[in-house]
């Protein structure tokens, strides 16, 4: 019989909460209880102070500072809750719970890893780069002005794509990958259209691909079956639904069925 930890929502201190670029912020949270259990590709729940907003805001771990016991999260203002987060100041507190999700498999041995991030899907790839052994090719895409580039450059060659071509390659990351002919096991996080593209790319060139997905969540820890994504399965219908928060957020490109 499992003996429950006393872990639940925790009130943690905000070390800093700075804007990286327009509409995108990095928050550093002091949570020594959470850090030791956390790995690349996992996420935490952030909870709002506005008590009309009860559901968690799942945010991926961007960097883990194991010495200090800090988590670095990078979030974009997408709605009311993230707009609220952007007003928080260093020294204030925030309610957080986690870590949740399976995270990336960082033990895969390969002489060339292909790391792909798009928009607010980019942050989790930073910690992944830290953990992955072997050579890494890093491809990141943004609508316009990029961020986190400096952090990636420590871990490998960074190739940037922007929709408007303002920086680097003009177009999406998949087009850039095609052009460069990048190969190797893929680790990707970003908007669904990009992940669809990656899935196709992986099939075409017969590559392994781990895709980190997003879905609206009721709990974050497997309790509500609310956050599902469609995967191929040997049911009559030929598919079933898996929990992004628990079975994911990282899934093999082979099983994911994008609609």
């Amino acid at each position, binding site marked *: 019989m499992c003996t*429950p930890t006393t*872990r*639940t929502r925790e009130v943690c201190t905000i070390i800093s909460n700075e804007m990286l670029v327009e509409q995108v912020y990095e928050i550093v949270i002091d949570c020594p209880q959470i850090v030791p259990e956390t790995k690349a590709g996992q996420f935490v729940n952030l909870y709002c102070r506005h008590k009309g907003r*009860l559901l968690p805001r799942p945010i991926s771990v961007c960097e883990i500072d194991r010495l200090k016991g800090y988590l670095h999260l990078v979030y974009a203002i997408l709605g009311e809750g993230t707009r609220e987060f952007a007003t928080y100041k260093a020294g204030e507190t925030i309610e957080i719970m986690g870590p949740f999700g399976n995270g990336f498999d960082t033990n895969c041995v390969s002489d060339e890893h292909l790391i792909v991030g798009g928009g607010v899907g980019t942050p989790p790839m930073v910690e992944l780069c830290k953990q992955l052994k072997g050579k890494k090719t890093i491809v990141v895409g943004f609508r316009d002005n990029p961020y986190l580039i400096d952090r990636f450059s420590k871990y490998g060659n960074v190739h940037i794509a922007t929709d408007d071509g303002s920086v680097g390659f003009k177009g999406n990351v998949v087009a850039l990958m095609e052009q460069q002919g990048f190969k190797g096991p893929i680790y990707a996080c970003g908007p669904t259209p990009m992940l669809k593209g990656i899935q196709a790319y992986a099939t075409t060139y017969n590559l392994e691909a781990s895709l980190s997905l997003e879905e*609206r969540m*009721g709990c974050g820890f497997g*309790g*509500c079956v609310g956050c599902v994504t469609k995967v191929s399965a040997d049911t009559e219908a030929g598919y079933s*639904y898996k929990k992004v928060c628990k079975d994911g957020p990282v899934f093999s490109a082979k099983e994911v069925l994008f609609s």
Partner: protein
Amino acid sequence: MKLNVNIAGVELKNPIMTASGTFGSGKDFAPYVDINQIGCVVVKGVASTEWLGNPPPRIVETYGGMINAVGLQNPGVETFCKEDIPFLRQFDTKIGVNLAGKTIEEYVAVAERLASEDVDLLELNISCPNVKEGGVAFGVDPTMACKVTEAVKKVAGQPLIVKLSPNVTDITEIARGAEAGGADALSLINTLIGAKIDIHKRQFILSTKQGGLSGPAIKPVAVRMVYQVANAVQLPIIGMGGIMTGEDAIEFIMAGANAVAVGTANLLDPTASIRILHEVKTFMRNKGIEDINEIVGVVK
């Protein structure tokens, strides 16, 4: 302090239950909460065969609540018996099974399969759409509520709770229908039907457009209905709907509930059920209440 309550012959060590669909089958909560402390775990809806559920998005936040459209995703009663019952039996708590079905036959099939199983209570969720009669829910028509209750009661091996939908003009009619059908207890409320629109994308957020509204926002409706039903039937009542604190639980009990179920609160904090139990105890201690049953329906 006496906390145990009796629901249709089943003795619960305390009046705190979990609301179906908000505690899974316990597995996902065991790492956080000591299930031994919960009066009764009511598992998510179980159907005769596997149900895949609705496409995402299934969840959306609303002011003081949430709307869900899970669509009763479940592996079917066979898998449930093989995997979930043994898991829950490790704990010193009662097991309630929420029955899902689209026809009377389907409901009967699940209850029949469970008759010989080691579970303590059945909860008939009559809010499901009734496919045979063209999608109208059993829960909105007294005669149909009576019919399905009767049919399931015939084969049931455990006391039968009938769970009422709040989306009706007069919930006491449905309650009497279930009572006439032989229900051993009633639980209420299920979710209110609601919807939310993404005004930027110009579409409903949920794949099913509308879904079930739960959380503190609906508590006043739930308390009103528990009071109405408690004064309309003779059956034990399990009250739920937006319970977030021990004081909320006490409110339902004073309105006429013999036990209460914690729902959405479990999702917002997996330890909520136990916290609420402790808050109930504290209230009783402060008010010098010896036995929780003293205050059932004290508000007239």
